[in-house]
C-alpha cells in the first residue's frame, strides 16, 4: 500500500526560526489517519524533539493522540503541565486548529498538511476522487470526473493541451477528456457529448450556509444524548403493526438450565416425572443465578445436554413432552397484599419466579432489587433500539398496565424516588398510551428519546435520560439507578399479580426473508424452527438467522435450538458477504463508539496478544454493541478481537492474582 501520509514535519530550516524566542514547549502529535495502520508511534515527534533539543529548548511534556481532530476525545488527553508556555502540534491542519481551540496558550504548527492521497471520504483509499462540486458531471462524461481528472477542471471538452493522450501539466497524467471520449465511444455514446449544451459551473452552489447548516445538523445528531452511536435502517414496519398472538404450544420443549448470567440452575426433575405449567424444574445454582420453570404440562423425557442457542455449547437442559392440557401448577397463584411485603420478600418472589433481564443479558432481576447502594431512579428501557425488533413495542401497547404495575414494584422495592420509561420517538402510539396512563402517577414519567442505536444500553440510557455518566468500570447502581427492560417488568407484574413465573415472552419473528412476520407470546423452550415454519418459512435459501436483533443478535446455524428467556427476536436477514481488508485508520469506529474507545486497536492488540495494551485501551468498557463493526469501512470483525482481548485481559489478571 502507498504511504498516505497526511502531513509532514516542516523542514529544519522552518522549525529553527519558528522556535526562536519560544521555550517550554509541550509537543502534541497526531497518530495520523488514512494510512496503513501499524501499532507504532509516528516518527515525526522524535525528529521535532531532536531539533528542539539542539536549539536548547525545554520540552515540558508530550503526547501522542489518535484522531487529534476529534475534539470530544482530544480534550480529555490534553493536560498541559505547569510551566508550559507554547504548544507545538505535529498534525494536519484540523488537529492543529482543534488544539488551538482547546488551549489558552499559543499553538504552533510544526507540520504542513499535504494533499497526497486520493479518495478522502473516510473510507477506501482509492485512485478516484471527488471534489464535491455540488453539480455532478459524471452523467455526461461516462463516469469519469472532468473536475478532478482534468487539470483545468474543464467541463466543455478537451483543451489544446493534450498530446498523445497525456495532459500538458504532466506526461504521467492521462488527458481526462481523451478518457471520456474513449469511454463514451466504447459505450456507443460518442454522439451524446456533441448534443450537450454549454456547461457553466455554478461556484455558488457550494456555499458556506449550506455546508455549515449540514455540519451543524450532523453534529447535533452525533452528540444527541450521548457521544457516538449509529442510525441503522430500522425496518420496524415489517412487524410493528401485528398484535401479539399466542404461539401454539409445541409438542416438545427443550428448556436449558442456563438462560441467565451466572451459574446454571440445577435440575430438580428427572426423566419420567410429570410436570405442570409453571412448575419449578431447576433450582438456582448460586446467588447470581436463576430458577427455571416448565412452560408446559406433560412428561419429562430427558434431562441431558443440548445445544444452547446463543453460547453454541452443549448445556444441561430439561426436555418435556407436552400433554397439550397446559395445566397450571399449584404454585401459580396471585400474591396477596404485595404492598405490605418487605423488600426481601418481594426480591424472593422475583427470584423464585425465575425473572431475569429480558433485554438479552439475562442478569437476575432479584440481585438488582437488593442494591447495596441507595437508588433514586428506576429507568425502564422501552427504546428497543435494535432494528427490526418490535416485541417490546407491542408489550408496551398491549400490556401497558402490567408494565406500569411492574415498574411500581421495582420503585417500591429499590426505594427509588421515581421511575422513568424511556421510549424512542419511532413508537408514537406507545408514548401516547403510556403518557396517558401515567399522567396521574406523580413519580412516574415518560422520556421520549430520538432514535439512535445503542440507546437501550444501560450507560447510554442513563446518560440520555438523566444526563449522568457512569464511570468506567462502575455500575448503574453507583449513580443511583436501576435499569430494567419493559418485558422484564411485565414478567415481574405477572409474578406478583398472577403468580406466574417467567415461562413465556414476546418474540418478534421478522426480517426481509420471513414470509409472514409477526409478534408472538412464545413459551420458553419452543424450537426456533417451529416459529419460522409457523410464519410461513423463509423466502430464500441464502439467509442468515439471528436470535435477537441484527446488531447484537446471535447468528445460529442449527434451527432446532429452543428460544429462551432472553430471545426477543428471530430474524432472517441478508447474509454478510463482506471480507475484511486492512485497517486504513479512517477513524469512523472511534467516531461512533458510544463508550469513546478506539476500537481500531483491538485487532492489532489481539493479534499481538498484548493484553496489557488492551487493558490500557479500556477494552473492558466495551459492551459489544457493534457500532464499530457496523461502520468499519474495511469490514473488520472487530467484536471478535474485542472478545479475545477481554478474555486475555481477564486471564492475565487471574494469573497475576495468583
Amino acid at each position, binding site marked *: 500500500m502507498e504511504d498516505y501520509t*497526511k502531513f509532514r514535519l516542516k523542514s529544519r530550516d522552518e522549525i529553527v526560526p519558528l522556535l526562536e524566542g519560544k521555550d517550554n514547549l509541550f509537543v502534541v502529535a497526531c497518530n495520523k*489517519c*488514512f494510512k496503513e495502520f501499524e501499532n507504532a508511534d509516528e516518527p515525526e515527534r522524535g525528529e521535532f524533539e531532536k531539533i528542539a533539543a539542539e536549539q536548547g529548548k525545554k520540552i515540558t511534556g508530550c503526547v501522542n493522540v489518535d484522531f487529534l481532530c*476529534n475534539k470530544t476525545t482530544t480534550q480529555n488527553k490534553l493536560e498541559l503541565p505547569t510551566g508550559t508556555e507554547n504548544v507545538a502540534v505535529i498534525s*494536519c*491542519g*484540523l488537529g*492543529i*486548529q482543534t488544539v488551538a481551540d482547546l488551549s489558552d*496558550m*499559543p*499553538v*504552533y504548527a510544526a507540520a*504542513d*498538511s*499535504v*494533499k497526497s492521497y486520493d479518495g*478522502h*471520504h*473516510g*473510507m*477506501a483509499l*482509492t485512485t*478516484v*476522487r*471527488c*471534489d*464535491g*462540486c455540488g453539480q*455532478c458531471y*459524471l*452523467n455526461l462524461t*461516462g*463516469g*469519469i*470526473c472532468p473536475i478532478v481528472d482534468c*487539470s483545468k477542471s474543464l467541463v466543455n471538452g478537451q483543451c489544446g493541451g493534450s498530446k498523445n493522450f497525456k495532459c500538458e501539466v504532466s506526461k*504521467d*497524467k492521462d488527458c481526462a477528456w481523451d478518457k471520456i471520449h474513449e*469511454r463514451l465511444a*466504447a459505450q456507443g455514446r460518442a454522439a451524446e457529448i456533441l448534443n450537450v449544451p454549454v456547461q457553466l459551473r455554478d461556484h455558488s*452552489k*457550494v456555499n*458556506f*450556509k449550506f*455546508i455549515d447548516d*449540514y*455540519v451543524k445538523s*450532523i*453534529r447535533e445528531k452525533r452528540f444527541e444524548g450521548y457521544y457516538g452511536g*449509529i*442510525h441503522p435502517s430500522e425496518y420496524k414496519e415489517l412487524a410493528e403493526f401485528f398484535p401479539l398472538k399466542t404461539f401454539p404450544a409445541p409438542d416438545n420443549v427443550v428448556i436449558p438450565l442456563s438462560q441467565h448470567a451466572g451459574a446454571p440452575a440445577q435440575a430438580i426433575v428427572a426423566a419420567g416425572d410429570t410436570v405442570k405449567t409453571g412448575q419449578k424444574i431447576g433450582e438456582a445454582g448460586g446467588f447470581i443465578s436463576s430458577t427455571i420453570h416448565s412452560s408446559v404440562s406433560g412428561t419429562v423425557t430427558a434431562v441431558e445436554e443440548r445445544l444452547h442457542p446463543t453460547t453454541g455449547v452443549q448445556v444441561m437442559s430439561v426436555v418435556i413432552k407436552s400433554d397439550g392440557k397446559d395445566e397450571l401448577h399449584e404454585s401459580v397463584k396471585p400474591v396477596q397484599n404485595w404492598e405490605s411485603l418487605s423488600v426481601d420478600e418481594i426480591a424472593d418472589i422475583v427470584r423464585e419466579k425465575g425473572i431475569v433481564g429480558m433485554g438479552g443479558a439475562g442478569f437476575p432481576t432479584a440481585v438488582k432489587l437488593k442494591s447495596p447502594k441507595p437508588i433514586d431512579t428506576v429507568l425502564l428501557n422501552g427504546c428497543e433500539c435494535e432494528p427490526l425488533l418490535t416485541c417490546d413495542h407491542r408489550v408496551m401497547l398491549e400490556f401497558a398496565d402490567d408494565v406500569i404495575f411492574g415498574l411500581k414494584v421495582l420503585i417500591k422495592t429499590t426505594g427509588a424516588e421515581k421511575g422513568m420509561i424511556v421510549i424512542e420517538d419511532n413508537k408514537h402510539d406507545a408514548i401516547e398510551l403510556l403518557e396517558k396512563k401515567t399522567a396521574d402517577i406523580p413519580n412516574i414519567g415518560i422520556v421520549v428519546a430520538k432514535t439512535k442505536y445503542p440507546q437501550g444500553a444501560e450507560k447510554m440510557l442513563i446518560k440520555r435520560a438523566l444526563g449522568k455518566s457512569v464511570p468506567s468500570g462502575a455500575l448503574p447502581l453507583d449513580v443511583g439507578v436501576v435499569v430494567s427492560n419493559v418485558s422484564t417488568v411485565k414478567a415481574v407484574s405477572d409474578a406478583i399479580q398472577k403468580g406466574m413465573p417467567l415461562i413465556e415472552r414476546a418474540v418478534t419473528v421478522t426480517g426481509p426473508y420471513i414470509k409472514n412476520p409477526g409478534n408472538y407470546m412464545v413459551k420458553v423452550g419452543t424450537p426456533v424452527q417451529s416459529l419460522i415454519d409457523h410464519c410461513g418459512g423463509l423466502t430464500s435459501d441464502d439467509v442468515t438467522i439471528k436470535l435477537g436483533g441484527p446488531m447484537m443478535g446471535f447468528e445460529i446455524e442449527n434451527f432446532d435450538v429452543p428460544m429462551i428467556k432472553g430471545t426477543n427476536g428471530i430474524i432472517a436477514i441478508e447474509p454478510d*458477504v*463482506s471480507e475484511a481488508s486492512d485497517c486504513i485508520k479512517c*477513524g*469512523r469506529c*472511534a467516531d461512533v463508539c458510544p463508550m469513546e474507545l478506539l476500537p481500531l486497536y483491538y485487532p492489532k492488540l489481539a493479534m499481538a496478544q498484548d493484553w496489557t495494551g488492551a487493558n490500557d485501551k479500556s477494552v473492558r468498557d466495551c459492551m459489544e454493541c457493534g457500532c464499530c463493526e457496523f*461502520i468499519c*469501512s474495511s*469490514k473488520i470483525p472487530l467484536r471478535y478481537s474485542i472478545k479475545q482481548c477481554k478474555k486475555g485481559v481477564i486471564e492475565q489478571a487471574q494469573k497475576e492474582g495468583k
Partner: protein
Amino acid sequence: MLITVLKSKEDIECVAKGKTICVTCEGCKEVHFPEVEAIELVKELNPTGNVITEYVCNPDNLKVQLAKHMDKLNAADTVLVFSCGVGVQTVSDNFRDKKVYAACDTYPLPGGQGVTPLEFDCEQCGECYLNGTGGICPITACSKSLVNGQCGGCKDGKCEVDKEMDCGWERIYKRLEKLGLLDEMRYPAKLRNFNLMYEESK
C-alpha cells in the same frame, strides 16, 4: 467524507432509461446520505433491481458486495448509483462498458480527514499558515482565503458572504490579541504557492 444530495427527479428520470439497476451506498449514512429520499425515489423509478450496499468507493469491497447480483447487473442497460462522486466513479470503473449514472450531487464537508464532520476545515494547502494566525486557518475560515489580513467586507464581525459567518480575520486578530501575539501580524506580504497542491498530488 462528503455530503450527498439527490439530483432532481427530472434529471434522474432523464438518465434512468431502459433496464435500470440502482446501486445504493449507505456506507456514509452517519455523515450524510439522503436515505429516505433515495428509497422513495427508487420506488418511483421502479427499476429492475435495487442493490443496497455500502462503501462502494472501495473497489475490492464493491466486487464482493455485488458478486451475487452480477446476473442482474450484466443484464441491465443502466446502472444508477446513489452515492458520492467517488462511489459513482468506482462503479463506473468496474462497469466500463455500461452506462453508469449518478443520482446524487456531492458537496465537500469540513473535516474530511476521516473522523466526524468537524467545526474546522483543512484544505491541505501544503504551506500551513496556522503559526501566524493563532491557530485559526485563514484559508478555510476566510471566505476569500486571504492570507494578508482582513478585507473591507467585514461588518459587525461577520463576513460579507453570509451574515452568520464570522469574519476569519476578525477571529484571528482577537485570538492573537488574547495571546498577546499581535506582533505576529506584522509580516511582509505573503503569497500563496498554488503549485504545491499540484506537485504533491503528482
